[in-house]
């Protein structure tokens, strides 16, 4: 799939913008603080109805305006789909084909993106919560059911943590209700863990292949899904459900004591292993970056496998972070298949021999000018 056209109204520092893109490589060129990331963010928001850098939708609305609009036209093998998202201070409204969508789960999946920003280079080494967020965002785009399980799980988790606290302070006493919450949580939790394990296994195959290419066959990359020992032998969703139920029973007193749910997918982690060693503990910074890159690129292939379409690739200021070999890989591997957007302050940072006729857009203070139209561009139709 690719994004053919994008229109912004009152989004960040774009008062009004209407632009068309190349199905291939799109370069957003400009000094710092001009609106390059804001434009990538707009594409991300159009895909996921939320930003990658703020939880607060207000921040996306241009200062002084009441609402922001992001509209786009997505071209897929099945046809062209117009998407529109309106963000107001009270909430958001999403339409697909001009029909308003009552739920997020019916909107997501229309436009899929994979974003690679400088902070993603920390994917391997950063906090477990960053890896969980990564997994949830990606799998949520591929599977509405995963997204549904996740929202249900989070809602029940909030209730359960609150109830544990009430039990702890003797404001509540009913353990049957706690059992019910544990049962519900175990049900959705088992589904989430199972899907993560299945999709991570698939992703690992792609990641190992790419990693081998990037390291010229020197490194073998594997993933391990880290969860409590009590769940290690459970392999089906049903087994996981039973094991989680038993674990909640076992942890009950500790959970009440600490007023918090101590097991479930919200506590799990993923470890990346190259040549038998945990990269976060034993890898050099370079190895950690290469691993992050392999994982991100694998996501593109996994999305293609799961949804039948390649996602968009959004690269924010990452080229300068990578050496030429890795740059070449990033751009060469996907250039004919995946619509790519990359931001840079300087074209000399882009390995020029590998990019075919990109569309180059210069951005200054929320204004965009096309400096090179690029190949196969919609304008020429």
């Amino acid at each position: 799939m690719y994004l053919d056209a994008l229109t912004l109204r009152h989004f960040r520092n774009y008062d009004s913008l209407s632009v068309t893109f190349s199905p291939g490589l799109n370069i957003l060129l400009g000094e710092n603080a001009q609106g390059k990331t804001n434009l990538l963010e707009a594409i991300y928001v159009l895909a996921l109805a939320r930003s990658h850098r703020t939880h607060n939708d207000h921040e996306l609305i241009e200062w002084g305006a009441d609402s922001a609009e992001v509209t786009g036209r997505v071209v897929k093998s099945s046809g062209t789909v117009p998407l529109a998202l309106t963000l107001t201070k009270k909430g958001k409204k999403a339409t697909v084909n001009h029909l308003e969508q009552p739920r997020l789960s019916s909107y997501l999946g229309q436009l899929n993106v994979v974003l690679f920003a400088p902070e993603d280079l920390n994917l391997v080494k950063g906090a477990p919560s960053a890896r969980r967020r990564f997994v949830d965002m990606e799998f949520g785009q591929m599977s509405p059911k995963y997204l549904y399980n996740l929202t249900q799980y989070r809602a029940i988790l909030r209730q359960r943590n609150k109830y544990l606290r009430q039990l702890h302070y003797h404001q509540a006493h009913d353990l049957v209700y706690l059992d019910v919450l544990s049962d519900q949580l175990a049900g959705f939790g088992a589904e989430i863990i199972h899907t993560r394990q299945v999709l991570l296994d698939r992703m690992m195959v792609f990641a190992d292949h790419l990693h081998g290419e990037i390291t010229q066959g020197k490194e073998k990359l594997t993933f391990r899904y880290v969860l409590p020992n009590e769940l290690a032998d459970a392999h089906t969703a049903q087994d996981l459900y039973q094991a989680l139920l038993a674990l909640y029973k076992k942890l009950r007193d500790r959970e009440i004591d600490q007023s918090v749910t101590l097991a479930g997918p919200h506590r799990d982690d993923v470890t990346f292993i190259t040549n038998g060693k945990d990269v976060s503990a034993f890898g050099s910074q370079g190895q950690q970056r290469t691993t992050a890159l392999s994982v991100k690129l694998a996501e593109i292939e996994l999305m293609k496998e799961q949804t039948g379409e390649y996602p968009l690739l959004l690269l924010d200021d990452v080229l300068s972070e990578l050496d030429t070999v890795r740059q070449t890989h990033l751009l060469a591997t996907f250039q004919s298949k995946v619509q790519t957007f990359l931001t840079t302050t300087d074209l000399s940072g882009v390995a020029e021999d590998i990019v075919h006729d990109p569309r180059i857009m210069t951005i200054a203070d929320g204004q965009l000018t096309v400096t090179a139209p690029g190949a196969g561009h919609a304008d020429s139709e």
Partner: protein
Amino acid sequence: MLQYPEPIAKLIDSYMKLPGIGEKTATRLAFFTLDMPQDDVDDFAQNLHDAKTKLHFCSICGNITDQDPCVICSDPTRDQSRILVVEQPKDIMALERMNEYHGLYHVLHGVLSPTTGKGPEDINIKSLLTRLQQHAEVKEVIIATNATPEGESTAMYLARLIKPAGIKVTRLAYGLAVGSDIEYADAMTLIKAVEGRQEM
């Protein structure tokens, strides 16, 4: 600054207490009221007052009523062997409109939700259990709480309390809206409908 005379200022204030009504709408409604015939205004005031003072909750089922027990609970022709449990009185209105269910009801007045301070003692569960103890003729409890995580917990909780007494507990099915196109159903509805499929 010019102020409205006190009676109209107070009326605007009252309208603003209603949900979804801001100062602008309240002002418009207040001036509209001034133009209404005296009789209509008197009725309006009387109805507001009566709704609050004459209506109360049925001591058996918790529905809103102007007599106790309510018309449903005091109707001997209704099927006494089934109780359908809902979250709110307005759910009963929706179910009665279909004119297919002829059993009894029970209103919980909420769902279990610790984050909003609603535990098992805070909703109308105890009176349901007492009802079941006193009326051995009840053979089935149908739970019609909403399809939210909290509605689901409440249903599971009730099932755990009631089933050991040998009473059948059922839950409303989820599915596609009748007359709707599968193509336009959202993912969540479809997932639930597939899970709840039935053999033909």
